[in-house]
């Protein structure tokens, strides 16, 4: 089973979850290193953390989801024509969606 990094609201953090990335503020300063306790983050303006979670989907299921992402994106951008900014946006959203399904 694959391990995947997932960003979750602080409120969904559960005992045993491993902090997979350091928590930073908007200026990029590290508030908490990976593996530390989460207490006190709310008051410091942190809303989300990144944890490592197991992904139960098989390779076949992921391939189906990747195809669905592509179909949906093609539908959403069907009237985008040759617009260069929209072409860039299309590729960035595709990259973002596929990142979670790789």
């Amino acid at each position, binding site marked *: 089973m694959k391990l995947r990094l997932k960003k979750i609201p602080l409120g969904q953090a559960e005992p045993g979850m491993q902090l997979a990335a350091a928590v930073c503020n908007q200026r990029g300063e590290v508030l908490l290193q990976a593996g530390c306790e989460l207490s006190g983050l709310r008051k410091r303006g942190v809303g*989300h953390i990144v944890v490592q979670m197991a992904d139960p989907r098989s390779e076949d299921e992921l391939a189906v989801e990747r195809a669905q992402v592509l179909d949906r994106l093609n539908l959403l951008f069907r009237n985008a024509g040759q617009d260069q900014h929209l072409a860039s946006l299309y590729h960035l*959203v595709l990259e973002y969606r596929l990142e979670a399904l790789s």
Partner: protein
Amino acid sequence: MSASRIKSTEEILGAIESFSSLPHAVVEIVRSIDDDRVSPTQLARMIEGDLGMLTGVLKLANSSRYAVRGGVASVQEAVTVLGFNAIRNLACLDGISSHFRKNGQDAFNFENFMRHSIGVACSAKFIARSLRLNSDIAFISGLLHDVGQVVVAVTLPEEFAEVMAYKKQHDCHVSVAERAVLSMDHAEVGAHLANRWNFPAVIGEAIGGHHRVFDEVSSRMADVVHVAEVLSHALDFGGSGQVPPLSHGAMLRLELSFQHVRLHFDEIEGEYCDMAGMLGVG
């Protein structure tokens, strides 16, 4: 009444005069958004003056998104723990959502409207933040940018149904359908309402200008809301079905590239999912 009898802008505006405004507390909070002198106590008074909003804000502030240990029991406490701007945004979110949930019409999909409004609000907030513009004004402008559309849906339901039918038949953007069926689009209606409610000019310009950014002159907040709307459709918030045309002028004026905004996609989507979930439209 059939849409063919509506001939002029005056008739449309006359029809929407029957709309009984937004809740007083929402109008009051939006009016005060660019006033730095408003204190947490004054904000709390505005919220506490509307029992529905007070209940809604406390419910949202105590949701799992914020996970406040022991919970918050008052607006003052919520402001202390979550921050002044967060509570002001939650108050507007709750007020608008509650109001239009009650006043919905058959042809108008309230849930999609709220999803879209929240999506544009969250996108506008992060775009504004990355440009060092006021992200709270951007959030509220995004939240209210389509208020003209929902007011048309509520006050002119038959005409709104015709607009939706035209949009579907021609596979076009809603503002194109509105101009074809009515004599004005929802942004113009929204600008009229923002003026009637004495909203700050920056918000009125964003609401009224978010589809007029193809002109050479546009306000920065209208440009932000316009780009946020395109991004929101691209990220599929609200199930709109298509990405609308993008103004290159707006991108140029803002000196913005989507490559830069890409860094915030997960934050935008995270906040969108949280807020839509809190309001039960996720």
